[in-house]
């Protein structure tokens, strides 16, 4: 197979990208001076995939939490499980499921090639029985309960429930105790067949390994399939939230809040440039050197944990700001006022330049970390971008662009999620 080379001279990094005949995308960034490598094998199948196309081409609903359940179960096998196999190479293996993908990974400095073989092998060889599925329901049940007690997690998922009426981003990644009770071995096999084909996957490797070696291991270790990518259904939903306020009582010391602004989107995905322009805009407007942060802090409405982010993916996009506050409504009102003020007066150009510089610096710093870099390369692929596209997008963001992104933030599309201490 042939690799295409992408180099960023200033950054001093080169990425090799190639498409294997099975449909699998491979991305490799060899790093000089690193003995360790980090590899991630990702599938475009996450918690938002709550429907699959059946034989007659229609979308059929499946229980919530299947992607995450499969992630847990793939580690099992008829003989040695994946953890036992990695224990022999010394690599530390793990996996995670997010809204849009499932990722299996390892990091190691010895026996990297053998670890890569194991990674490809265990992800491609499912083995479930009714008994092992039931055992996992107990473990995942505890995982779900653990998250139910985490205020940071709950405040965000409650916000998503308030913002979105239909989009499955509103459901918990692991599903619920009830939904996982509906999962059985047959269903897992059927979903595995549907999503886990190389055309719907990417292998991203960063660190002490050469691209040719990775290609060779893939050539010998990947199963041939039709190589098709799974289709997702985009249903545009009304930008007006389900409710403007949502509250939950938890065992916490002080109130926590998250204010969200849903974006009115007509296409399922934002462009990378829009995404980065939004992030830079948020840094300029609500970052730690902004007048907004100073005001909130001076009025004792937030603490140093205050933060903001753009939260987006297939079919959803919103801006979130939050932290701890004695008066979330007052904090929310000040934030809304500031967005309105900057909407008419314009973002301060010096603040914009500082934010852009910070953003660029943090992006370059990210390349120190082989874990972050491999995940970045995977995400860029899933969203249809070439390596280093994020750095180019950052350099090209203008104040006008940031201002245009700010204009998308509207009070009528907002909701406030609050966690209140139990009396």
């Amino acid at each position, binding site marked *: 197979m042939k690799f295409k080379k992408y180099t960023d001279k200033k950054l001093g990094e080169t990425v090799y990208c190639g498409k294997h005949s099975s449909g699998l995308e491979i991305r490799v960034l060899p790093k000089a001076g690193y003995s360790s490598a*980090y590899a991630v094998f990702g599938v475009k199948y996450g918690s938002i995939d709550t429907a699959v196309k059946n034989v007659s081409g229609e979308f059929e609903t499946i229980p919530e939490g299947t992607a995450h359940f499969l992630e847990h179960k793939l580690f099992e096998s008829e003989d040695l499980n994946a953890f036992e196999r990695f224990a022999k190479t010394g690599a530390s*293996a793990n996996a995670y499921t997010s809204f849009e993908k499932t990722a299996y990974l390892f990091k190691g400095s010895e026996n990297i090639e053998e670890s890569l073989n194991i990674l490809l092998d265990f992800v491609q060889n499912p083995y479930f029985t009714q008994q092992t599925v039931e055992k996992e329901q107990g473990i995942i049940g505890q995982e779900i*309960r653990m998250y139910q007690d985490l205020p940071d997690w709950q405040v965000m998922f409650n916000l998503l429930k308030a913002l979105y009426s239909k989009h499955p981003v509103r459901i918990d990644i692991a599903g619920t105790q009830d939904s996982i009770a509906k999962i059985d071995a047959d269903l897992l096999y059927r979903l595995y067949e549907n999503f886990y084909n190389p055309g719907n996957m990417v292998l991203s490797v960063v660190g002490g390994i050469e691209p040719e070696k990775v290609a060779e291991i893939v050539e010998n270790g990947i199963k041939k399939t039709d190589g098709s990518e799974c289709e997702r259904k985009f249903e545009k939903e009304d930008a007006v939230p389900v409710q403007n306020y949502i509250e939950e009582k938890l065992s916490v010391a002080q109130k926590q809040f998250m204010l969200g602004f849903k974006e009115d989107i007509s296409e399922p995905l934002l462009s990378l440039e829009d995404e980065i322009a939004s992030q830079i805009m948020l840094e300029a407007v609500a970052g730690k050197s902004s007048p907004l942060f100073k005001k909130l802090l001076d009025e004792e409405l937030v603490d140093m944990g205050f933060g903001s982010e753009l939260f987006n993916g297939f079919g959803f996009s919103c801006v979130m700001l939050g932290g701890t506050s004695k008066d979330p409504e007052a904090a929310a009102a000040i934030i809304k006022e500031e967005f309105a003020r900057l909407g008419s007066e314009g973002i301060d150009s010096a603040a914009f330049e500082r934010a852009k510089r910070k953003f660029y610096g943090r992006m370059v710093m990210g390349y120190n970390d082989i874990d972050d870099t491999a995940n970045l390369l995977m995400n860029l692929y899933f969203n249809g971008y070439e390596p280093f596209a994020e750095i180019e997008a950052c350099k090209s963001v203008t104040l006008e662009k940031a201002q245009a992104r700010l204009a998308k933030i509207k009070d009528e599309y907002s909701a406030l999620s609050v966690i209140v201490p139990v009396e």
Partner: protein
Amino acid sequence: MPNIRMLADKVRLVSEPADKFKTSCISVSMALPMDERMAANSLLVYLLKRSCKAYPELSLLNGRLDELYGAILGAGVAKNGEAQVLSLSITSLADKFALDDESIQLEAAQLLSDIIFKPNVKNGSFGAESLATEKRLLIQRIEEELNDKRTYAFNKCISHMCHNEAFGKDKYGTIEEIQSVKMADVYDAWKNMLSTAVFQITVVGAADEERVAEIFKKAFDKVERNPATLETVFIQRSRRFNRFEEKFPVNQGKLVMGFRAGMSHRRDNIFAVTVMNDIFGMGTYSKLFMNIREKMSLAYYCWSRLVASKGIVLVESGIDTDKEKKVSAEVLSQLSDLRNGKTDPEVLESSKRALREKHTFTTPEGILGWYSSQVTSDEILTPEEVVNGIEQVTMEDVCAAVKKLSVDTVFMLSAQEEAENEV
């Protein structure tokens, strides 16, 4: 081997330069006895992080960091044995990534030095408003430890277990002590820290070691040093068994079991104890993971942690409240199997491989953390020395180390029966 030199009495500079990293990382660790100054020391470190002479306000200092391509200024308070360690650190982009060829690294190093040695002090005052704000934020930070029940239960177990030892104290000091700190106390804490703290300046990555040494050497030339003596009490065997319980309206209970590890100082039998702890409850091949999670499906996590600086081991797990007896009995039964040599010899090899990986750092932050955590040790131990030491450990050594382990205190955070989480 890192480069080690002394800049002043008990001011050690430890440096491991590496061109492969895109950042320059410098941390200054300052170790002090856990005495009546703890609360003032904690406030001091956050006051120092707020501003300095050249950038006398929080937003100005944060703006300066943004200009320096998003340099990251960190501040923290930790317990290291029975010493309170204050830390201030800066991570900045290496000069070669600057878009306009400006200098970043040295500016960042100078800024860190100024923050410590040239704070925004006028007539012995850090500013009444700044102090009031930092008091509010620190008290809030302590109160919010309640939000994360896992950490809360972990700290509670330690405070009960070590209630007659300095280690049982909260790292920040108590809320009452913080409330009663006066401006003169903070100023005195600053003077005291410069003169008496045991310092370690750790430099990793693209940083220019010589120039960093010059900057700090110059700053210390104006300080009269009178370093404190730091001592930690090691209790080798548990004297009695205690169980404590607190009830909260939560979904999941948290069990923490505290053990004395039989160590007489932080490096006493350290290699065998490290392997013992790893096989007991760190890796996926460990007794706790294999049995409590995988076999019995009782928990999503159940692991053990070694706090070598105090010679204790803590086992923690998130479980259903009514399973406490079952889980704690199983933890002790696994320990007994380990003591009696009922461990697959392959597990020892897996553990050594995994520990070798854990000591192969791939980020400057990892290396920095490794060395800076040794601020209170006279001799610096390199990761290679630890790996070599671990290599020599036999199963007999592990069994002997388990024999010295004694259970001391159990803390159970239980779910109240009427727990509800209706949104």
